[in-house]
């Protein structure tokens, strides 16, 4: 029964949080439980790298499209695709840094560069069934899946002008890897697969160090103790994931090697598999 409560000059609606300060730790903890609702637990999110795939042009993009079309032949596969922006994002930010633009200004700018890759991808995949998905039109997803249409999501999170001041340095912390992770997390998806141009995640940049070693299957907890400074994925992804409840599996595969993505979609351990173990 809804009930209005007054008497202290304010009009409240009766609720467990009525009159409470949402800064109070005791109050905050009352809202928690050991699970979050999982909306789409049978969906895989596929993220296709900007620098690693799109910046290589036709030679890398077309074989990957072919593989996506093969994957789509299995009508039981439900996937959402996102893309990175690559070298144009880096160019944008380097100019923005030189101009002294605020970090929120940089965050507002970069999404446009990724959208270019999303348009390319959709133009190539549309004949086989794909459509760009508007920012947060998640509730259309069941329709997409029923119709065999693969949605292409916006990967940069909408932090925009509100990008928080970074912990160190001057660059935005919330990039497209984080954005896609968060999309999978909030919708309770099965896994995220990052398609890059290396066989997985390495302890250091394999392009610069011949002795770099690849992580095979590793838990998030263990990886967090070994995270390299210069990383193939946004640091914020790992940070946010460690506080999250839903997502259990992130896979990093080589999109230049045919079959790795398909294997990861089938749930096979390929590339680097990062798993989150349930809290004890």
């Amino acid at each position, binding site marked *: 029964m809804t009930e209005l409560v007054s008497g*202290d*000059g*304010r*009009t409240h*609606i009766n*609720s*467990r*949080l*009525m009159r409470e300060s*949402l*800064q*109070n730790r005791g109050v*905050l*903890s009352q*809202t928690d439980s050991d*699970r*979050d609702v999982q909306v789409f637990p049978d969906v895989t999110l596929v993220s296709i790298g900007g620098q*690693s795939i799109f*910046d*290589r*042009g*036709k030679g*890398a993009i077309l074989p990957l499209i072919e593989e996506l079309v093969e994957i789509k032949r299995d009508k039981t596969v439900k996937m959402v695709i996102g893309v990175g922006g690559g*070298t*144009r994002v*880096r*160019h944008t930010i*380097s*100019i923005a840094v030189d101009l*002294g*633009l*605020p970090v*929120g*200004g940089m965050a507002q700018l970069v999404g446009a560069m990724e959208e270019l890759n999303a348009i390319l991808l959709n133009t190539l995949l549309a004949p086989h069934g794909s459509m760009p998905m508007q920012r*947060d039109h*998640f509730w259309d997803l069941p329709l997409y899946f029923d119709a065999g249409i693969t949605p292409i999501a916006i990967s940069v*999170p*909408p*932090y*925009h*002008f*509100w990008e*928080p*001041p*970074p912990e160190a*340095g*001057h660059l935005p912390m*919330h990039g497209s890897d984080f954005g896609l992770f*968060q*999309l999978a997390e*909030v919708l*309770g998806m099965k896994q995220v697969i990052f398609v890059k141009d290396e066989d997985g995640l390495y302890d250091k940049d394999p392009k610069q160090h011949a002795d770099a070693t690849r992580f095979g299957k590793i838990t998030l907890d263990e990886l967090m103790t070994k995270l390299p400074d*210069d*990383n*193939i994925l946004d640091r914020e992804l790992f940070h946010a994931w460690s*506080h*999250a*409840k*839903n997502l259990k599996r992130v896979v990093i595969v080589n999109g*230049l090697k045919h079959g790795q993505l398909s294997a990861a979609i089938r749930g096979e351990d390929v590339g680097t598999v990062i798993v989150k173990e349930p809290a004890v």
Partner: protein
Amino acid sequence: MSERRTLESTLAGSTLTGPGDKLDYRPTAVMPAVKVVKIGGQSILDRGRAALFPILDEIVEARKLGIQVVLLTGGGTRARHIYSIASELEMPTGVVATLGKYIPMQNARMVQMLLAKHGGIYMLPDDFEKLPLYLQMGCIPVMSGMPPFGYWEKREEGTRIPQHRTDAGVFLSAEFLGAPRALFIKDEDGLYTDDPKKNPAATHIKAITARELIDRGLPDVVLERIVIEYLPRAQWCKELQIVNGLKPGQVLAALKGEDVGSIIRA
């Protein structure tokens, strides 16, 4: 195999995940003269006319003095009500944050209707690019204080309430605009050692640094904790001022730059 085709730049080939602290960065302030002002939801708007009208009078007076004001609104009891029900349903934080957008938006629209005759204009979250026009025309832009993170709001350990709510939105707006101080209008004189509504022994804190405030580990604080955490890393907005909007003259004094209420410094 096709090679990466890379544009030459200082960040070419970079993963963008390192600290990037070797860059030559000389920041430019976007609109440093703007006063970014929050009107509290539970503290002011839920009190209705008695509390709000005198505050708006002072804001209009400040605007007539040429002070550029942007108003952002909080949520209040309706936000608490939906947060409470959403929590029972075990909604992910991103969903809770999305629900949390609607109430501050209603409040912004209410304030705009009241200020329309004085140039009040409703602004969408991404409309900062229109601010120069609005302010040069003598308008008082009003917008929701909620950051646009929505479904992309990260989960915090131990709670499903979003960390970035309307205080964070006010601070982050001031930081983007390059304003040195953000002003929060509440129903208390500022910062206390505990919630003064519940603990009569709580004492007022006139000025404090963010670090001191964090070190005190207070059970309750007047602003969202994440804002206190961000403050030391801010490029521009290095002061947060909290004033009591129920006391006549406080809002106008603060808008004129006087150190009334409490001030938290980076």
